[in-house]
């Protein structure tokens, strides 16, 4: 297992050197806009991200940060009346925004798949799980009934559902939350997508089940070399599973880089605040947690300067932070970037401790 | 510095409050159905109340020299076979229709809400008994029930109102009970128990106010059916006794001469139709605007 991962990693590195290995999914300057009572506003505001084959990109943020909307945009499922108005979505080099609705539908599930937070809403209660998985296979692969059923059993086995021959004829309500999430993952990977987007896949699950589901995703990734986008708010999960991290705030990327850079040389005050405000099994219980004051901003009424300035322990009240919107720029090594005017200060402060 | 931010917050709060009030008003005024319905019902009310001043003639004064007159300046819609001014009879008829609508809604809303809320909130055997009784009453068509009650009681405005109200109370109660059933398991009800509120107080303070919006909508629409029922009863001669002018009796009296003077029955029919449409539009408008939660679910724009 260890070896296979190393191989993929090495492969990626070699590929980078030859610049032949494209990212599995790349978003360039993506803007998704919603009409509002007081004029249109961007819920995704110029997001650029990429994830390489075999890599796990964790996207971290609070509700309203645009993390889910970014990837709903990527998969072409922005809820009305929202609309992607700018940018490129490159799946293995193809710009999805230029595809017809029909082509996009054919591509969804086959090459780009998504797993959602609530495992119950993703399943139709009146069909057996076997029918639902076979339905996907039939629609995209034109498999016969018997073949589809056989493949479905194989998939259930792959996601470690015990006794798949019997379970395949169960209805969703007969399964526990963790099992349902496994079924959804089985459906999502049934067509061997290149990119799997998992939106808070374990938030609704108990912690022991969460561990099982995420171990499963990690295992599937190593078997198939697909790229995984893990949307989450849990920094512990990020520490455990992510190769690279993007922290989002108010529809923009606040900081992005290798997991190691984000954890060891944090360069954005928002990321720092997240680390210090969430209790973990290692937090000092004697002192209070760091509070991020105020509320996440209303995307329809963002401040003129840095969106985090009103809540920032470092920049609050600073003139430049109030007037200049910081661009994402390299800090330290080239892949580590942060959108903060004072990121050098943040890094020094972090490493000094 | 904290003083400055506090002031800024207070200012922002005041501004937000102003914006919210404007939004609330806009919510009603931007709903075309609500506006049209409200205007129709308001006009009807003005006409009914102002009848003595608005009506060109007395609704009861017969002029045997002038029967079945065609429309003229003196009788804008002509006269009926007794020489009474049709327009004046319609104007006074609005009084009866509105009274019936108003009282039926008031009575059926009061009793229906109470009965439905008790059944839904208390549950147990009380609910079973009430539901069984409601089902029995609903098994009769509302109009037939009213007809039977009026026939037994003798016809008068009071008995029409009573009969129609009794026929519609179970309908309101059914809606109320089902809404209460959805409210009972909501966390703020449990929270109210935890605070130490008595069940009665929870029912009055929390359950009924939250259940009321959909029930008010049903009641508004049932006002329309009540007006129809009254017209029907009057048409059959079981409603308010002649010579009092009601829309139903104008239709009935015009029926005999409908081939030669269709305008008489038709104009009364149009009055009923407008009133019913007005109330239905108002009900729709209320449904869309009354409940903040419902509004969020149905989402932004109507029509």
């Amino acid at each position: 297992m260890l070896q296979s991962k190393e191989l993929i990693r090495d492969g990626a590195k070699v590929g980078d050197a030859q610049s032949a290995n494209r990212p599995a999914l790349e978003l360039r300057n993506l803007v998704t806009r919603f009409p509002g009572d007081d004029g249109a506003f961007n819920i995704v505001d110029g997001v650029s991200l990429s994830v390489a084959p075999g890599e796990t990109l964790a996207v971290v943020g609070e509700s309203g940060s645009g993390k889910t909307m970014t990837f709903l945009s990527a998969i072409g499922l922005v809820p009305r009346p929202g609309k992607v108005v700018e940018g490129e979505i490159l799946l293995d080099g193809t710009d999805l925004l230029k595809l017809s609705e029909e082509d996009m539908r054919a591509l969804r599930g086959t090459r780009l798949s998504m797993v959602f937070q609530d495992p119950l809403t993703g399943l139709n209660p009146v069909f057996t799980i076997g029918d639902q998985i076979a339905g996907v296979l039939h629609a995209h692969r034109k498999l016969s009934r018997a073949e589809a059923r056989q493949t479905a059993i194989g998939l259930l086995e792959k996601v470690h559902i015990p006794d798949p021959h019997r379970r395949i004829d169960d209805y969703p309500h007969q399964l526990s939350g963790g099992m349902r999430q496994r079924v959804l993952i089985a459906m999502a990977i049934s067509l061997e997508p290149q990119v799997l987007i998992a939106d808070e896949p374990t938030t609704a699950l108990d912690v022991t089940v969460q561990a099982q589901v995420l171990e499963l995703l990690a295992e599937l990734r190593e078997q198939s070399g697909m790229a995984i986008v893990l949307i989450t708010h849990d920094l512990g999960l990020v520490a455990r599973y992510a190769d690279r991290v993007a922290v989002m705030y108010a529809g923009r990327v606040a900081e992005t880089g290798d997991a190691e850079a984000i954890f060891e040389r944090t360069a954005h005050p928002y990321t720092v605040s997240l680390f210090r405000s969430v209790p973990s099994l290692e937090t000092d219980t004697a002192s209070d947690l760091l509070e991020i004051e105020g509320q996440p901003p209303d995307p329809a009424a963002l401040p003129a300067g840095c969106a985090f300035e009103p809540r920032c322990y470092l920049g609050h009240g600073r003139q430049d932070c109030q007037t200049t919107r910081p661009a994402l720029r390299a800090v330290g090594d080239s892949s580590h970037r942060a959108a903060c005017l004072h990121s050098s200060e943040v890094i020094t402060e972090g490493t000094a401790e | 510095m904290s003083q400055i931010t506090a002031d800024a917050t207070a200012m922002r709060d005041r501004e937000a409050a102003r914006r919210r009030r404007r939004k609330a008003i806009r919510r009603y005024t931007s709903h075309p159905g609500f506006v049209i319905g409200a205007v129709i019902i308001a006009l009807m009310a003005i006409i009914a109340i102002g009848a003595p001043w608005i009506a060109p003639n007395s609704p009861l004064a017969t002029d045997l020299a002038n029967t079945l007159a065609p429309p003229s300046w003196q009788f804008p819609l002509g006269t009926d076979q007794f020489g009474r001014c049709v327009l004046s009879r319609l104007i006074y008829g609005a009084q009866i229709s509105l009274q019936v609508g108003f009282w039926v809604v008031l009575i059926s809303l009061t009793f229906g809400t109470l009965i439905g809320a008790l059944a839904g909130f208390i549950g147990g055997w009380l609910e079973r008994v009430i539901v069984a009784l409601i089902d029995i009453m609903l098994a009769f068509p509302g109009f037939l029930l009213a007809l039977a009650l009026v026939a037994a009681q003798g016809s008068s405005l009071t008995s029409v109102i009573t009969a129609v109200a009794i026929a519609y109370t179970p309908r309101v109660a059914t809606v109320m009970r089902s809404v209460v059933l959805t409210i009972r398991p909501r966390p703020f009800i449990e929270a109210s128990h935890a605070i130490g509120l008595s069940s009665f107080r929870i029912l009055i303070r929390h359950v009924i106010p939250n259940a009321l919006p959909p029930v008010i909508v049903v009641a508004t629409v049932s006002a329309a059916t009540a007006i129809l029922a009254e017209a029907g009863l009057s048409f059959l001669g079981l409603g308010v006794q002649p010579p009092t002018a009601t829309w139903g009796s104008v239709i009935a009296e015009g029926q005999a001469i409908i081939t030669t003077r269709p305008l008489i029955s038709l104009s009364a029919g149009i009055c009923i139709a407008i009133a019913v449409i007005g109330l239905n539009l108002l009900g729709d408008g209320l449904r869309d605007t009354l409940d903040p939660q419902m509004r969020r679910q149905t989402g932004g724009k109507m029509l």
Partner: protein
Amino acid sequence: MNTPVSLSTDRDALVRVDNLRKVFGGKRWMFGKAGPEVSAVDGVSFSVGRGETFGVVGETGSGKSTLGRLLLRLLNPTDGRVVFDGRDITHLSQSELRRLRGDMQMVFQDPYGSLDPRMKVGAIVAEPMQVHGTDRSQIVRRTGEILEQVGLPPATADRYPHEFSGGQRQRIGIARAMALNPKLLILDEPVSALDVSIQAQILNLLRRIQRETGVTYIFIAHDLAVVRHISERIAVMYLGRVVEMAPRQKLYAAPRHPYTASLLSAVPIPDLKAERHRKRIALHGEIGSATALPSGCRFHPRCFKARLKASADGVATAKIADDVFVPRQCVESDPELQADAEDHFVACHFPLEPGEAVDHGIATTSNE
């Protein structure tokens, strides 16, 4: 069923619970069919000292929320006893209970649903005071005071709950619960519905209120890190039972019940180096159902320790599935909650020894 454990602590206890049970269902209605009986809480005993924060953790179906409602008598216990402030409240009448509610209050999980959407915030906070007969001028003063205490501007009182974010609504919920200065506050998952950056605000607020008022907390949650941060003593529940109970340091540093150890190992920590080297104890299967409890120890079908122990010499074993053996004792007898070390209670036939959980070498997964 199992004898009440004597848990008298030297501290003056505010709450004492003896062998508390709650069975749902099983009752037949006039026409309906009798449903299966579910023991949501099945023989729980503990006591909580004045001014203490007592944490209750457990997964879905552990009975922790039911327990909170039994303590407040929002649900009536099937069996057992709740003593509050020296008074047995198990059989109080509804009207006596209502008077008591001034002393024991609750904060709910759902900050959106637990406030009446049709009432202004001021009215919501004032309501408990009106019910308990506080006079009008005092209510106005106290409303302003309590809103300020939970960090909300006075103007909040004139607004409706839907105008506020989740965190602010939870502040309103706390203000309502604290309005009458209760002795006990039961917090049922008070931060689990909130955004991560808001959780810290609420946890700090709760700690500050306790410092200022000396109120006793019973903090119910599924998040082990959150419970650890706020609680002094913690009970771990599994399928209606307390399986382990200990002061914070002991429970987290040296868990003795295999279930606690598995739970702790499943929680990832936001520290890259540490997390990537941590080993994880895999729990077998899924949490059982309270309608069909396993015989003996209710955790045995999922327990790594039982399987490990079964392979040791001289242990009588029982087969529970193909190739799966556990000690016969685990299948046949239900372990009682017993004090092992001082203040450290565990309900297990083969509790873990210090350091054992991380070293046993089997059934672990790790992404290294």
